[in-house]
């Protein structure tokens, strides 16, 4: 796709990407692997990055952006768009190629990733890049922010949904539970928290550092409707998002997505911690790209 400027886009009438867009499971899986490949390339360019945390939510991000969210990339501030907040902001690397692909900014921006002055960085900044509904980086904030957006939706009579993707380690932050309490109290059925429950935080297994389970019981106790799902099963994710209660319903929804940190790359699945933050050697990178590419080609062949 040719690079084109945002100003040129502004001249065209903005198209809406509706909820529940037609897409096959195979296409979503291919898109998740494409996110992985793009992430590997961007991290190589920047010199350091969060691989395994990005890979654990690749299917979730793919399903949301290519099926679930109601968006208008040509009008990024459209008041009725569904909101998506990347609570676990350290995986923004996986989001940048998606937003470029959907037309929020030119692909050429990706070439600046990680450089001084680039609008795209390791964590997302809403002031710099279209498509970012809120900045993140400090864990524990975005469920509060999303609760505010959901309250704003109620007050303004708009039917947008607000999705907040959190890590499971992030749930150790006390502010998350202040937000969970408020969302339950205000009966915000237009708010969806998705927990990327990959079982690891920066230094080791999440519940070894501080137990966060049983997550379903905890969110239920705070007044949330809880759905537990395999976070790599795009069919299950799609079905879960397609059957969310109406935005006017009276319970916030928590989707606990059970995932594997480093999913989709064998060496990272085996050593998820080692690849929380790092840089592949050129040889390792070639192996990783070959592994993902082979899977994509095999899937394409099977589909034919």
């Amino acid at each position, binding site marked *: 796709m040719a690079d084109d400027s945002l100003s040129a886009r502004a001249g065209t009438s903005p198209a809406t990407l509706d909820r529940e867009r037609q897409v096959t499971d195979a296409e979503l899986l291919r898109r998740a692997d494409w996110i992985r490949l793009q992430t590997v390339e961007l991290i190589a360019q920047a010199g350091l990055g969060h691989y395994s945390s990005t890979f654990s939510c690749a299917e979730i991000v793919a399903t949301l952006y290519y099926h679930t969210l109601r968006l208008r990339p040509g009008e990024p501030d459209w008041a009725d768009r569904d909101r998506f907040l990347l609570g676990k902001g350290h995986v923004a690397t996986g989001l940048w190629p998606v937003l470029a692909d959907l037309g929020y900014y030119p692909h050429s921006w990706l070439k600046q990733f990680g450089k001084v002055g680039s609008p795209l960085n390791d964590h997302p900044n809403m002031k710099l890049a279209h498509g970012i509904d809120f900045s993140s980086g400090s864990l524990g904030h975005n469920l509060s922010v999303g609760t*505010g957006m959901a309250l704003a939706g109620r007050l303004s009579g708009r039917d947008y949904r607000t999705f907040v993707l959190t890590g499971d380690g992030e749930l150790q932050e006390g502010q998350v539970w*202040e937000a969970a309490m408020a969302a339950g109290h205000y009966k915000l059925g237009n708010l969806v928290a998705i927990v990327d429950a990959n079982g690891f935080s920066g230094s080791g297994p999440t519940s070894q550092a501080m137990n966060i389970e049983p997550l379903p019981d905890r969110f239920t106790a705070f007044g949330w409707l809880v759905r537990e799902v395999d976070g790599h099963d795009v069919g299950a994710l799609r079905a879960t998002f397609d059957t969310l209660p109406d935005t006017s319903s009276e319970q916030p929804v928590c989707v606990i997505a059970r995932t594997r940190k480093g999913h989709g790359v064998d060496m990272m699945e085996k050593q998820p911690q080692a690849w929380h933050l790092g840089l592949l050697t050129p040889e390792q990178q070639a192996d990783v790209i070959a592994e993902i590419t082979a899977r994509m080609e095999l899937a394409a062949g099977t589909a034919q």
Partner: protein
Amino acid sequence: MATKKMVDVFSDIDRDTALKANPSGYAITELAAEDDRIVTLTADLSNVLAEFRKAFPERYIELGIAETNSVSLAAGMASCGFRPYIFSMAPFGVLKTAEQLRTDADYNHLPVRLVGRLSGLAMGYFGTSHYAVEDLAIARMMANTTVVAPADPNAVLGIMRATADLDGPVYIRIAEATDPVYDEVPEFAHGQWPRLREGHDITLAGHGMGVGLAVGAAKVLQDEHGIGADVYDAAYIKPFDEAAIVATASRTGKVLTIEDHIEIGGLGSIVAETVGRHKLAVDLMQAALPDKDLEVGVPAELYEYYGLTVPGVVAKALELMKR
């Protein structure tokens, strides 16, 4: 000198004296009538919003004792077009939530307003956990945040009007023990300090309760000592009035700052940094709180103890004049 007892701080609002008794609560109700983007949030401080809640019940959001959530949540609402005013006790509203204010409101340039009630030593009797004496130093470090500290009830209304349309965050520091300074609601120009009295011997500049003390001290200095004080209401802590500082410091050569804030990082620092930048040879002195463990007591007695009274300010001014 106000001799307000602790019980008065939380007393019910007499409608006839709503502005005087609860200036920020009165002001927000007036502003909200003209701007339907305004919502209010509190972390268990609903009593200061009794009028607002009655007038606009759907635009009031109680968040319980959860200040950090309040700030991030307000930032989320602000990103959706609302103008949230968080009413909070200053020590918990600013110190506890400094990172949320910085990361969610300030970095994102969002119009979140924090109204810090009971600032300084206003909750003295409750102990040092309830002091907000570092708040201005923290708030003014934030690049996109406007920081204001009005002098009296009329100034609260004036400055809340003056900052209502700003597109970035605002911290409004409410002083409780203020002597009346303004007979009418003043009009503030962004970042400018009203000059309340003209003199050529010494400059007195204060914010919040310090303004009334400056005005009172200036009268004593003139009447009893023949000293002419140049008096400023340093209502804007950020942006501050650099031109006023340079002009008055050049005129008098002696500047006494008055504030119920630690001597580091507040108005005293602002003046020192400014005269240093401009290479002005100026004698500086502060009537402020010391950079050490503070005592506990009812506010009026604490103000006596720390010299934040008219006689205390006069004594400092005379000391500065002798240098």
